[in-house]
């Protein structure tokens, strides 16, 4: 197939789809469509994780982002009854300025990273660190304390969200 391996085909297709869906997130007027395109972008990124043999992260990514976070976004958008008619639009001039800043940022970053060393990724078969067994050993060995702190962080976020979401605190 034109001298490319299956991995390279997968990388190309997933990258193209991810960039297209990400652009649609920004340029779609309807917020609900924006959320759905973002879910598709996250699926493409999960595909990239699979190509990189990070299977645990691919599954966690789908569960946490596509499953939990985006459903939360969708709920809030539907609660607020947002649609194309209520969508506030920036003036044309500020959109053009935003595009110019993005283009300049792209040129600067690509220019500065172009000279980076050309390194090939390890063979997929050789890299087994993304599997649950190996990642679990690192997570519950070296990173046990940060892992416990993360649970406190999530508890604090949960309490904070409930406090903020309550009607009026007398």
């Amino acid at each position, binding site marked *: 197939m034109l001298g490319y391996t299956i991995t390279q085909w997968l990388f190309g297709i997933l990258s193209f789809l991810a960039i297209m869906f990400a652009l649609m*997130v920004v340029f779609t007027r309807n917020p609900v469509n924006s959320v759905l395109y973002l879910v598709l972008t996250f699926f493409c990124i999960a595909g990239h994780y699979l190509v990189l043999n990070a299977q645990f992260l691919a599954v966690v990514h789908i569960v946490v982002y596509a499953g939990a976070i985006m459903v939360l976004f969708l709920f809030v958008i539907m609660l607020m009854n947002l649609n194309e008619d209520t969508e506030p639009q920036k003036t044309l001039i500020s959109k053009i300025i935003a595009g110019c800043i993005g283009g300049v940022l792209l040129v600067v970053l690509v220019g500065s990273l172009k000279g980076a060393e050309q390194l090939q990724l390890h063979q997929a078969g050789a890299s087994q660190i993304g599997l649950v067994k190996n990642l679990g050993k690192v997570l519950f060995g070296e990173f046990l304390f940060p892992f416990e702190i993360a649970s406190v962080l*999530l508890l604090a976020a949960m309490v904070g969200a409930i406090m903020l979401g309550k009607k009026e605190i007398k």
Partner: protein
Amino acid sequence: MINTIPINYYIMLSTILFIIGAVGVMARRNAIIVFMCIELMLNAVNLLLVAFSTLHNDANGQVFVFFIMAVAAAEVAVGLAILSMIYRNIKSIDIDLLSKLKH
């Protein structure tokens, strides 16, 4: 299946995704869309962390991505609670109206 993708391709992909997110933050006025673009930028960084983690055959990068996901979930929960409270008070989530943090 031999993985022969240069790391530069992943750097370019992450850069492009990050910049799309940054442009979205600058070009949109709906606070929820701005929030989603921030998530997109976080994911671009996550992708690069996983790519480098595979490159160096080092699990620490993937553990960091795991923690970033936990922090992002906490951030989204609090952020959306704040947004829904703002919507309840001023019936809008247009960030240009919120720029003075009062109404």
